[in-house]
């Protein structure tokens, strides 16, 4: 299959997502510059981590106006799998593809460290190969990952089973101690109502090889390969 990795001028995890898709998983991957207007026939789109436009304003606030985002919106509306990682998740929130917003971490500091997240939904293209309740060890690296939404919105997310990942302890319990940034309901990642758009703060592309400390992130990529090959999540063309 073919991944499109969108490159905003301040993306800095674009190489990492590309490397994971192409070198670790042996799939096709192509960088798509944010000023371009075509996803070039990709089967899945990744919005990578970084600081899209420096993020001196709200993170992702400018990125949503990039020409490529119109294509990403269309691709998502047509049912294509879209994964926003870290800054990519923030861009998805700004673009309205996922609900809510990010506040600064409650530590008021950038934090880079391994955390544990539990997979709560397996009917998204990026968790299709997971087992429900599976706990993954994946790093975070962000200063603004403190998820916030109105309580009604969070209730709706719960009702619609849109909370895909939660920060938990090793036993899969979403305790306050396991919450690295203060996110409401320990939310680490969400999916859209149609379930094809997924955003998460942790970096699965950094956890694809044991030499780097964890290979737990591989399953997100394996999931979308499976989902696409089975034709479950494909953009209607």
């Amino acid at each position, binding site marked *: 299959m073919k991944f499109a990795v969108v490159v905003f001028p301040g993306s800095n995890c674009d190489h990492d997502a590309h490397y994971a898709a192409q070198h670790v998983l042996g799939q096709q991957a192509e960088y798509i510059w944010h000023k371009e207007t075509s996803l070039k026939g990709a089967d899945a789109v990744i919005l990578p981590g970084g600081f899209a436009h420096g993020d001196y304003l709200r993170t992702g606030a400018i990125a949503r106006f990039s020409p490529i985002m119109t294509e990403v919106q269309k691709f998502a509306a047509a049912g294509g799998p879209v994964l926003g990682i870290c800054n990519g998740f923030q861009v998805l929130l700004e673009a309205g593809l996922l609900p809510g917003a990010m506040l600064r971490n409650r530590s008021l500091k950038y934090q880079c460290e391994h955390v544990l997240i539990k997979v709560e939904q397996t009917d998204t293209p990026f968790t299709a190969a997971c087992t429900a309740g599976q706990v993954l060890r994946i790093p975070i690296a962000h200063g603004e990952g403190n998820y916030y939404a109105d309580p009604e919105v969070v209730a709706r997310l719960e009702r619609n089973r849109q909370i895909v990942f939660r920060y938990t302890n090793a036993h899969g319990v979403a305790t306050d101690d396991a919450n690295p940034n203060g996110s409401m309901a320990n939310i680490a990642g969400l999916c859209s109502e149609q379930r094809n758009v997924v955003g998460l703060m942790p970096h699965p592309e950094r956890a694809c090889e044991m*030499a780097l400390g964890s290979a737990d992130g591989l399953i997100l990529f394996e999931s979308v390969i499976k989902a696409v090959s089975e034709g479950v999540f494909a953009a209607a063309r």
Partner: protein
Amino acid sequence: MTISDDILQRHALTREEYQRIVDALRRDPTLTELGIFSVMWSEHCSYKSSRVHLKTLPTTGSRVLQGPGENAGAVDIGDGLAAVFKIESHNHPSFIEPYQGAATGVGGIIRDIFTMGARPIALLNSLRFGPLDDPLVRRTFAGVVAGIAGYGNSIGIPTVGGEIAFDESYTGNPLVNVFCLGIAAHDEIIKGVASGVGNAVYYVGAKTGRDGIHGATMASAEFDEKSAEKRPAVQVGDPFMEKLLLEACLEVMKSDALVGIQDMGAAGLTCSTCEMGSRGGAGIDIDVSLVPQRETGMTPYEIMLSESQERMLMVVKRGREAEVERIFEKWDLHAVRVGEVTPDGKLRVRNRGEIVAEIPNRALTDDAPLYRRPMEEPTYLGTAQRLSLGALGTRVTPVDAFRRLLASPTVASKRWAYRQYDHMVRTNTLVLPGMGAGVVRVKGTKRALAMSVDCNARFVYLDPYAGAQLAVAEAARNVACTGAKPIGATNCLNFGNPEKPDVMWQFARAVAGMGDACRALDIPITGGNVSLYNETDGRAVLPTPVVGVVGLIEDAETVVRSPFCAEGDRILLLGETHDELGGSEYLKLIHHQIRGYPPALDLRREAAVQRLLVEGARRGMIRSAQDCSEGGSAIAIAECCIASGLGATVNLSGVKATPGFGDMTTLFSESASRVVVSISPAHEAEFLALAARQDVSTQQIGVVGGRRVAISVDGRGVIDEPLDDAMHTWNTAIEAYFGPARAIA
């Protein structure tokens, strides 16, 4: 123009130096020219006090592709690739404005690396602060860490390691030394040269403002108090702009359209124009009115001396201008033609066509003043080198000393700092921070690079020659612990006022020691930086010549980390422990003294230990390796336990020492060339045989396992600490100064 003493003083020029300027120009300088001379002849740019000593350092070797004199050094790492690296200081700005001072330090060193055509892949930092119980120090420390994080994280270069130490001498003068390493193909290395008469000179990046115009060398009738108020002394960094510059420059460099490129760091446009011209044997003619400016009414003087960040100067091959402009446009940057290369070897500055400065490049660079400053052995040494342990009395038990050492900020976990740094971006980080050297793999090859920055300034204070040798040895040993063969070094020499003979003596002796150690260990120094005048209220910092060593691992899969790996593994201590508490962390922490002689260093033994580490790692025999530094072997063993969550039971043979100090010396002596390694039982005999062949003395001291750190001396239990307690002490010591923190996973 009459030059008053006042104007000279504000330009930090002496009357003799002024006369040299007049002789070089064969006339009086204009004010703009005076400003240009003052920054180029400043200590920072000219190395006028240090150059005679730096020339003695070994800078060549079979792997050296670029030695000192360019934006950064480069060494061959095989596969047609080069490691391009350098360390630089940003001490003074970081005290005035910790966040921006540190951030722009990171920005500056990153530009030095990508200017060479290399993609930066790793950052390290070496930091010094006063004691953390001082609230001002906490503010500085927190600001510096946040500034390093803010810049490095945004641009996406991982901060993979470093060192932080605390001492009263740094309270009013913290040290912020930043190291960056990048990778370039040999044939893609590009230099800071201007050549080819008529080639266009381009300016690209941020606009020029009045920020960073050197306060100390600032002058004259054109400025008054009010204009001084408008000028921030410290520059403000814009990592996003630098990210754009980085990507755009690397793309332009791939196009082969450039003759040369240099960043505008210290002394801004002045330094980049005259240095590029000087290296290429050419001149540069620029018109400052073409320089993009973000403030109105800037004078040529201000434009030439501004140190606004994120700016580059390029010489473009004739006929390739449009291509270069197009690439910068893609990144929303505008490359502006500001001048051209001339044949006359002069820096000519115009303002709307009118010449405002015309100086031979040589006068600014090669012919800058060179001083052999007077030197004198410091008077403090006589007292400081005398250590009488007997007179101190034993104040604590070994286990109390052990706990206090684990909680000493210099020894304790630096997690509070490094968790704020993105240390994993680019997915190359094989050894996470907090465990000795940082290690990154080189994608597209089987290789990995290890790097470490080190200096125990107490040792340098007590004996600058020996202390600098120990710094080289420690940095190289840390690199060797990962299985890497040291292949190159860079240095950042932080000292006090060189006009004081005793400071100059420290400097000269340290450089001599560093050179001799590098020669003995066969590690060329490919560049670096000197930071002098690190003084507050006339009191200098401890002399701190930081050494950064880069090592090569042929097979990334053989990398060795420092935590213990498995229950039942055998623990060995390589090297010998001697009666050497001089300058130790123990002596400072428990007895509040920096006294005695630093540990003796036998460079042949040091080289042998490092060879053994590299060979043992290559053969897959070493499970873990941790160098013994502050706190000695007891702390090294504890760190291996804490990082792994595995306990250890160890017995050390007692060292002959001053009565009453036997156990303390055995546990906490900082004797050089020692490493704690763990070996699986299956490999133990083979490893011991290898060590014997390499002539490295070994002690089989214990076994990995359990949940306690249990250390005996000659069979007598002296420390028996639950691992969880040791972990808590070590992990939380620094965090405790900043309120509770949460530990995740």
